């Protein structure tokens, strides 16, 4: 029985999970070398294939903004209705260095769950727990 391939960049059509739900858990190290648009493409390609994408370290606010923008341009009737995205609420952190603030660098280390809007539903969310219901296709 074929298992899911670790190559999330590859052709997902060969990895049809059948009745199951495929979850791609992407490490911070995997995302680190990618540009903002490459990250967004990686996420949206996975989500448009019906997968749930979990990011170990999330996206920066600027990348989140572009993710919403690109998602909007890809929505089409009866095909793709957008994304559901959940992260823990932003903690009140004082861990940014002065240089980080000066250079506009923000800490983006927050687990993020992203899935197709028509397949993922948030049941509960608070500072410490995200509970989601994922439906099959």
């Amino acid at each position: 029985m074929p298992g899911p391939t670790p190559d999330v960049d590859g052709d997902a059509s060969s990895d049809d999970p059948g009745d199951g739900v495929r979850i791609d858990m992407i490490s911070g190290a995997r995302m680190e070398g990618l540009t903002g648009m490459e990250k967004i493409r990686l996420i949206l390609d996975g989500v448009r294939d019906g997968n749930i994408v979990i990011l170990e370290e999330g996206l920066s606010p600027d990348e989140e903004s572009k993710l919403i923008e690109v998602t909007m341009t890809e929505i089409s009737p009866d095909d793709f209705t957008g994304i559901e995205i959940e992260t823990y609420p932003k903690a009140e952190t004082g861990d940014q260095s002065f240089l980080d603030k000066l250079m506009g660098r923000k800490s983006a280390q927050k687990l993020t769950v992203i899935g197709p809007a028509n397949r993922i539903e948030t049941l509960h969310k608070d500072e410490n727990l995200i509970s989601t219901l994922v439906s099959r296709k």
Partner: protein
Amino acid sequence: MGLLTNLKDSISRVTDGLFAADEPKRIGIYGPPNAGKTTLANRIARDWTGDAVGPESHIPHETRRARRKENVEIERNGRKVTIDIVDTPGVTTKVDYKEFLDHDMEKDDAVRRSREATEGVAEAMHWLREDVDGVIYVLDSTNDPFTQVNTMLIGIIESQDLPALILANKTDLPGSDVQQIANAFPQHETIPLSALEGENMDEVYTKIAEYFG
């Protein structure tokens, strides 16, 4: 490369602020769908210019293009601020035309409305990164503010170092809970109001002059 670009952007932001002090500030009115953004924009525009910005509706995504009302002069306590109000479409991560069918809309109209809505949200996000000098973030105080869109939008606004005023709208409705919004975003001041009834607009204008003047 990234370091140099960031430094250049930071310096550019500072110099832009120094040399554009007399220009009208572009203030984007942001928030989720149906928070009352257009009602607020119309209230501000009517109070200070006599004109409206756009039509209001209970159907989500009535505003599908950013609308601007230029040179709105607000005077408060001897302080005058000139702003361009930009009323933006409600930000969301999903748009399904089928939701519009519940509002007695034909499929063709619903599909067209959803297409326009997605274009409008994309445009609003682009504006937020590139073209606004400050943000009025409007929330419906009868709804739970702890949504992902609100969390992300506030994070994006903060990352741009934009002055932001959070308004807890619809205080005229039963179930309004301003404190819930204040608790959700404790790093910002929350001002209660009813844009529809014009309640507490005096404080709103005082804060607009204070934040964006």
